[in-house]
């Protein structure tokens, strides 16, 4: 007798449900996406017990008539595409027609919905484990409310895997946050056990939405990203390097308005920071990538959490470049006081949610999505007015929008870091041979660290020779500036490498370059001649990322003119 049988529908549905519906947050995501696809402008999410007792999503979208409401719960019932051709560049969140069916299969689902034309009369469909139990006429206004109770009541294995109430709640909130970032034109409200956890009214200002979701402070730490290369554009926000922290970073990626996860792209964004952040810290990133619909396949993941790019390399490069450029201009320098930098509001929405506004599925094309990229030219070295040195540590000069204050050590570090990286990659810097070789006594562990990095020492210009015992003799040294103290730099560099001071940096070259730059740079407290000040500034502004040093601290701080005006009562 054959052992193979065709599974009953109920089992098939449960298997499918397992892919789409992993936890209450997946239910929230699917239902809110449906509301957005239905053109809702107000969405309310209610949770009980982290969503495991109840998830209810109510909207004021287009609703369904009686026939559609019944169909909606069936597998592969969708109003959003008609054939596989429509999948290309699909611009609604849903298109498979399986979410409701999958949710219904593992819960008790109640769908209440009404369309405008039926004048206050609607439909209530009740289903248990995917089976429709009742279809009733009810009175209700336009829109839809879906209540999902007793999730996984019939899949005890899944139920067991649910995590703590708190972490389920957090995941659900996170799902809403993602969509709330994409759609400023919709208000979102999430209530859990009667407490409002999220309240984001409609707005046209991304700053307001960010403040509503994350608090004002976070919003002020962000720098705008606005970059286009060929058909790819990247807009959004990245955190100012100095504000990046070791924990609690937020990384949100959208492609053509659709949130997705992609650790490699996050890493590409981090690469754009070019060592400007402390290696232990991770920056927050909110990036909206737009590209022609046919360049990205969104139908590769059961919960649509991942996408596939036709040319991933191009996208990674665009993201990295976009971030690097966002950090370049003077506005990216840390600011204090109000009237500060950061926000150019209003641009984000167009970037994040281009093809997804309203229920209409307009194909995504370039150009229609992006405003003119604002040009934020880096400050020209000629434009620094008359820089002066204060406290033998900072350089102050005037910019069009305020006062810039440069930390001479950090700035020089940035300059030398980029130069050292270039030297390490290209095979070496010019080394100055010494008339009087320097003899340096090392500890055994230091000698080992030196030997281990010998090639890199050579590349930046240290020609050293073991001299027996723990002694090395330097015959040639780098000569990055006239005040360079080769012996001290070498000793400190060896000590840092021995103690793994920059150990958090995984990349060996970067770690070495950062250590070298830190040790070779002029120190705070060093008086500089006017020509040296100018030279330092002009080299700083020739760097890739002038405003940031290599430890996640600012190299430039700005005192905005607006802040001065406020303090002096001129505004």
């Amino acid at each position: 007798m054959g052992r193979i049988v065709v599974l009953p529908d109920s089992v098939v549905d449960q298997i499918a449900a397992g892919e789409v519906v992993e936890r209450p947050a997946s239910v929230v995501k699917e239902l809110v996406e449906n509301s957005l696809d239905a053109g809702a402008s107000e969405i309310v999410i209610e949770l009980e017990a982290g969503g495991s007792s109840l998830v209810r999503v109510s909207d004021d979208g287009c609703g369904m008539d009686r026939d559609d409401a019944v169909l909606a719960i069936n597998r592969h019932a969708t109003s959003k595409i008609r054939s596989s051709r429509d999948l290309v560049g699909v611009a609604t969140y849903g298109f498979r027609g399986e979410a409701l069916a999958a949710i219904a299969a593992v819960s008790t689902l109640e769908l209440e919905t009404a369309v405008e034309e039926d004048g206050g009369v609607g439909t209530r469909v009740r289903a248990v484990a995917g089976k429709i139990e009742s279809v009733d006429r009810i009175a209700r206004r336009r829109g839809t409310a879906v209540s999902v109770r007793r999730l996984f009541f019939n899949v005890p294995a899944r139920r067991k895997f649910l995590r703590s109430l708190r972490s389920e709640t957090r995941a659900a909130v996170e799902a809403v946050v993602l969509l709330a970032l994409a759609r400023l034109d919709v208000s979102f409200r999430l209530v859990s056990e009667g407490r409002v956890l999220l309240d984001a009214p409609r707005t046209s200002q991304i700053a307001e939405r960010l403040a509503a979701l994350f608090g004002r402070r976070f919003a002020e730490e962000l720098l705008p990203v606005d970059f286009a290369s060929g058909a790819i554009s990247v807009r959004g926000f990245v955190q100012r390097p100095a504000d990046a922290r070791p924990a609690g970073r937020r990384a949100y990626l959208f492609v053509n308005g659709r949130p997705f996860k992609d650790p490699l792209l996050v890493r590409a964004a981090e690469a754009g920071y070019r060592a400007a952040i402390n290696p232990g810290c991770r920056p927050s990133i909110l990036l909206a990538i737009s590209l022609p619909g046919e360049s990205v396949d969104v139908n590769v993941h059961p919960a649509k959490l991942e996408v596939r790019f036709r040319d991933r390399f191009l996208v990674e490069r665009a993201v990295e470049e976009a971030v690097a450029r966002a950090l370049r201009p003077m506005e990216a320098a840390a600011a204090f006081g109000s009237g500060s930098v950061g926000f150019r509001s209003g641009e984000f929405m167009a970037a994040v949610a281009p093809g997804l506004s309203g229920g209409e599925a307009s194909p995504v094309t370039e150009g229609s999505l992006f405003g003119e990229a604002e040009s934020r030219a880096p400050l020209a070295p000629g434009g620094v007015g008359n820089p002066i040195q204060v406290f033998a540590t900072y350089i102050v000069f005037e910019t069009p929008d305020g006062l810039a204050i440069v930390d001479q050590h950090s700035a020089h570090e940035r300059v030398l870091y980029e130069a050292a990286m270039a030297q390490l990659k290209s095979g070496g810097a010019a080394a100055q041979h010494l008339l009087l070789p320097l003899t340096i006594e090392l500890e055994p562990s230091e000698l080992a660290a030196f030997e281990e990095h010998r090639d890199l020492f050579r590349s930046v210009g240290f020609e050293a020779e073991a001299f027996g015992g723990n002694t090395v003799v330097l015959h040639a040294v780098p000569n990055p500036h006239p005040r360079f103290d080769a012996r001290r730099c070498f000793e400190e560099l060896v000590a840092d490498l021995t103690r793994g001071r920059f150990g958090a940096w995984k990349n060996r070259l970067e770690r070495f370059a950062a250590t070298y730059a830190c040790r070779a740079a002029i120190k705070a407290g060093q008086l500089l001649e006017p020509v040296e000040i100018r030279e330092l500034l002009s080299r700083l502004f020739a760097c890739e990322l002038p405003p940031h040093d290599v430890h996640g601290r600012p190299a430039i701080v700005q005192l905005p003119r607006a802040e001065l005006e406020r303090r002096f009562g001129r505004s």
Partner: protein
Amino acid sequence: MKFTIAREQLQEGLTAVAPSVPAKTTLPVLGNLLVEATKDGVRLSATDLDVAVTTVVPAEIDSEGGVTLPARKLVEIVRELPNAGVRVSAIGDQRVQIECGRSKFKLLGIPKEEFPRFPPVKFDRPWRVTSGDLQKLIEHVAFAASTEESRPILNGVLWELRPERMRMVATNGHRLARMELPAAGGKDSADLIVPPKALEQVRRLFDPSEELEVARTDNHLGFRSGQTRVFTRLIEGPYPNYEQVIPRENDKIATVDRQMLTAALRRVGVVASDQTHRVRLAFSGGTLRFSVNTPDLGEAHDEIAVSYQGDPLEIGFNASYLLEILKYMPTDEVRLTFKAPERAATVEPVGWDDPASYLCLVMPLRLID
């Protein structure tokens, strides 16, 4: 304190000492000049704690005493006064009234007790040197001293005094200058390490024909001629053994026109990196080729005719070191000698009609391909 002095005399004294007042200082009294009325005249002094300069100018003294006055203001006032007698009188221990014709000023100073005293130097058995000889040494050597502060000895200029000659040497560890002159300095030998800024005052203050007395007491050195004196702290030695690094086996010798070499280095230097100013020199036969290649910026090539003996050689240099040395070379032609791309090169004048001998040395830069 009360005295009357001709404006020109006062001006002359101020011109001698005022340049030694430090431009920036955290100790306010160093921004002042010490003005003292003594039996011999008015003594003016300035110091930055490392170097002190004093001079005495003739004046009619009514009563002795002293005060310190802000140097800059005093110089400005005296510059604007008419050529006439200037009456200076102290009011208490820190105010001074200055009168000249119908102009009258009152200046607030600082009591003279606060002005740092330099330890006295005894001129009982001095060396005697001609100011012009000393100037020549200073001019050709002091530039090579180090400005980087980690090896204080190299911040100084070594001055070797011998019974029948004197020599100065300075180096920053990358390049070196050495000059020697026959001189009957008298008495014993000494090796002094002198801060270049003291030498600069000596070079500036004394006429080439003057005979200077130089004396040392403990760790201080004094120079004097007439009424003007310069004192300086000495840097503690020993100075590194420079003789041992002066190459004796350089077997590749080029004779080059100084102007042509300078011009070519400047031209190709335009695209050299500002960090290392690296240029590559290639000697072979009768030509010297220059090339510079700076990633991200560009390249430059040039060549000049030279007379060269030895195997072909390619060697890298910091162009600014070469240019600096060429600037001090006293003749139209210079001789360069080499051994190998990582060994010291020398530069010397050719056909210098002078009893002095002059040698500069420069260490190459590592070439990378």
